[in-house]
């Protein structure tokens, strides 16, 4: 830039911050409407939280790779202990036990596990000698790393988060270079096991969600209600939407969870396909940035962590949007930057913060000169 702006400020990743700010502001606008044209209870808090977590992310961005490497395993262990704590003393909320009340703050350890598992797995493959990547030794520690948190999160039970955690870890493992046939075989195995798991592994309410998402109109007042109403909201918005503050599905309470998981439907009703395309474009820019950070990263840990964190955010977006558009069953996953909710925003901004840190400190390719 130039000399008028102090270096520390000029060095900030302004493009990224601007993108985030635009998306969170759009979230603010949607939540403002969802509350019937009011800052309370959602829009105002949403923006305050975003600013706080953005500050946190900027602080994170100053921390160097070595710091993240160093805390990867300890953070993982701490979060697993917190998950255990949830099982032991967690308060019951939202039908399943997810919250841990630390007195001054209520946090959802399963959310923290999303970046934690990425860092831990990335660190593990960073430590693993390159020659062992095609051995059994590259696989069982991964399974152990996944097993502990997933078992605890499934106990809550929280299927959506479990899927995200497993998928995040798998993505890192995939990028780390585990044999391709493992993934192809794994996909085949899932295809076989999924139906069995569906009938014997899932709780009844989870089963119902899966069956009804395929045909929500069959059960318009029961489990299919969410999806039906969400599709009605999106579909009735048309190309240009019903206009700001004019959504009826959200304002008349037909759309359930219109400020959290189904915020996209609230948005689409008022802003139409144009709003939807804008949101998708925003996320496209974000993920392009995320992947480019990982491509530019010089160290193995940075590469894996950046790609993994970026993909973790992608999972939020993909699962949430597929859910609201009737392409996936209802699993409680919010839409980043638009949904109201502190825990998920914290997770996402942690991911963003670490991504910004890697962006700032791409590291030096080790061993190149050695």
């Amino acid at each position, binding site marked *: 830039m130039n000399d008028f702006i102090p270096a520390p400020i000029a060095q900030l990743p302004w493009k990224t911050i601007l993108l985030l700010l635009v998306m969170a502001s759009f979230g603010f606008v949607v939540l403002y409407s969802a509350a019937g044209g009011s800052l309370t209870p959602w829009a105002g808090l949403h923006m305050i939280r975003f600013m706080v977590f953005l500050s946190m992310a900027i602080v994170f961005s100053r921390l160097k790779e070595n710091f993240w490497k160093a805390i990867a395993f300890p953070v993982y262990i701490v979060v697993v202990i917190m998950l255990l704590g949830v099982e032991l003393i967690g308060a019951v909320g939202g039908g399943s036990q997810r919250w841990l009340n630390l007195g001054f703050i209520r946090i959802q350890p399963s959310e923290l596990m999303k970046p934690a598992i990425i860092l831990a797995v990335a660190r593990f493959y960073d430590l693993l000698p390159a020659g062992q990547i095609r051995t059994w030794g590259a696989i069982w520690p991964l399974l152990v790393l996944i097993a502990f948190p997933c078992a605890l999160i499934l106990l809550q039970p929280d299927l959506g988060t479990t899927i995200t955690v497993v998928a995040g870890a798998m*993505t890192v493992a995939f990028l780390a270079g585990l044999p391709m046939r493992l993934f192809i075989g794994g996909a085949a195995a899932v295809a076989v096991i999924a139906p069995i798991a569906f009938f014997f592994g899932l709780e009844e309410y989870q089963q119902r969600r899966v069956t009804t998402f395929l045909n929500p109109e069959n059960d318009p007042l029961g489990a299919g209600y969410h999806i039906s109403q969400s599709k009605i909201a999106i579909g009735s918005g048309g190309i240009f939407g019903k206009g700001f503050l004019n959504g009826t599905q959200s304002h008349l309470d037909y759309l359930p969870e219109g400020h959290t998981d189904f915020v996209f439907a609230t948005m689409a009703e008022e802003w139409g396909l144009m709003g939807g395309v804008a949101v998708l474009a925003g996320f496209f820019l974000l993920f392009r940035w995320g*992947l480019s950070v990982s491509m530019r990263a010089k160290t193995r840990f940075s590469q894996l962590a950046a790609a993994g964190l970026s993909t973790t955010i992608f999972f939020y977006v993909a699962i949430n949007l597929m859910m609201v558009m009737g392409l996936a069953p209802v699993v409680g996953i919010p839409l980043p930057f638009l949904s109201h909710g502190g825990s998920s925003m914290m997770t996402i901004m942690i991911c963003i913060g670490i991504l910004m840190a890697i962006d700032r400190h791409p590291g030096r390719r080790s061993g190149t000169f050695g």
Partner: protein
Amino acid sequence: MSIAGGKTISGAVQALTFSRRATIIGGLQASIGILLAGRMAYISVAENERYQLLSESNRVNLTLVPPRRGWLIDRNGKPIANNKTDFRVDLIPDRMRDKEKTVATLAELLSLEPEEIERINKELEQASSFQPVQVATGLDWESFASVSVRLPDLPGVSPRQGFSRFYPTGAAVGHLVGYVGIASAEDFKANPDPILVTPGYKIGKDGLEKTFEDRLQGKPGAKRVEVTARGKIVRELDSRPDIPGKALQLTLDIDLQEYAARRLGPESGSVVVMDCKTGDILAMTSMPSFDPNSFSDGIGQTEYGMLRDDDHVPLRDKSLKGLFPPGSTIKPMVGLAFLEAGLSPDDSVNCNGGLRVGNRRFRCWNRRGHGRVDMAKGIYQSCDVYFYHFAQKIGMNPIALMANRLGLGQEFPLPVTNQFYGTVPDPQWKMKKFDRAWQAFDTVNATIGQGYMLTNPLQLAVMSARIATGKKLMPNLLLNEKRKAAETLNIDPEHMAYIHEAMSQVVNGAGTARRARLPLDDVKLAGKTGTAQVVNLDFGRGGKDVAWKFRDHGLFVSFAPVDNPRYAAAVVIEHGGGSGAAYPVARDVMTFLYDKEKAMNILSDLEKSWGGTIAERMDKQMTAYRAKVAIEKAIAEGRITPEGTVATGETPNAEMGQ
């Protein structure tokens, strides 16, 4: 070195693998992004119309407003059935979440009787999901408001301000007018119009309400309101007012109708009054009756049980569906038949109290005999032997023909749901029906209105009116209906005058109903008594000293004034014990037509002795019936023994302790 070199090579391979695989991930992400964009475009563009419709049907709730039913008014414009403003609460079964809790909450808010709660629960079980179940009607504003404010917690509850049918004279018009009620599942299947299942919408279920359903119904209004998902109304978008049904003016004089009903008192019977000029039915009442207001509000089980169990059959319209042997009331008609057949009115017979026909002796009602009897005396003294004797000479066919001409055995073109038209027997009829030849004793029986002869009270009134006027008067219920003037019956005026005089003698001379003389100076009543045997009693006639259901029916046909007939009336008292039960009623009803005050004075004294007005007596009966049902239930459940001692709670406790 080799290790380091290997690592370097591996590291390079790994870096390559990473960038290749990261590209795969990026590609996958991009394709999911495209999939999502495509999906969204599909929903919001291709299916936009469909979802817009769904969104609108979510947002906008079209409520139908039941139309006000057309009034039924009497000939003077007084209401027979009208509509009163009504606050009501209904349940829509398929919108309810927790039925038990909702009903319990409503029961508390509206302080419903246990019996009502039982009915609601039962109807909820039986009703199709879309059929509204009535919780309560006729609520006061406070109860109505207390439900309305709790609506968000009571899904499926529909409080409405509407109109309900009201019959000011209650039971007096029950049978004729009928009642209204909620459309049945069959009605809805036959005509799946959503108005049929709108709470508060009633259709005619019986009587005129049913016959004139199309005319009285009206057109429903509609209201479009914006509602939240929980059913809370946000605002009214637009509304179309209902078009009330057309009023229907009846020939009835509702005051006379009510008077007749009240005058019947505790008896089971019917009064029909006709206008001799037009054939208009001025009153057609059948008592005891039901209160159509109770039926229209959805009758309670206990009240229905009471009506069903009553041996006076309040559920049957005796004017049109009660068939009675007319007894001696047909004697003037038979007299006309004799005259037309050429019998001289002076031809007489000696009555010694009976007449042998075949191998059986037929008694006259007067065992001591009437001495010499001509036609006039045969009528005013109601001598049976006179008719036994000459009927055998004239034969049955002329009598049956005259009976038919005067309206007996006829079904009239009236807008009623059903008429039982009875029997005027003749030889052909008997052969067809029983495959047996007509016998002399059949004629003898028929000529005094017994045997196979059966009529309903309306036919008797028509007969009186036709005898009074000599015209073929047809009974009407609708005022100002276009119709032809009554044709003449072509009866010789001299014959008519003779019969009129004889009938006047019944009341004003040496006849059988001298107490039926009107308490008026200028109006004379003509009539004929009848006492119809119900069973053959060996121990004499079925007077007041035998069980009610064995007592004779009391009948009286009449018209007034004698010299220029204006009104004709028939009164039938079922098991009244004789004509003495019938003609005082006819007298007072006729008096009412000329002097209301005098008639009302008579009635108020009588009602004091009967224990109140119709409504008061029905209430008392209801209370007694409730108590009876409660006791029977208690006995059935073993809470009290039939001897009346209350079972103590100690015994079962002691047993439980073991």
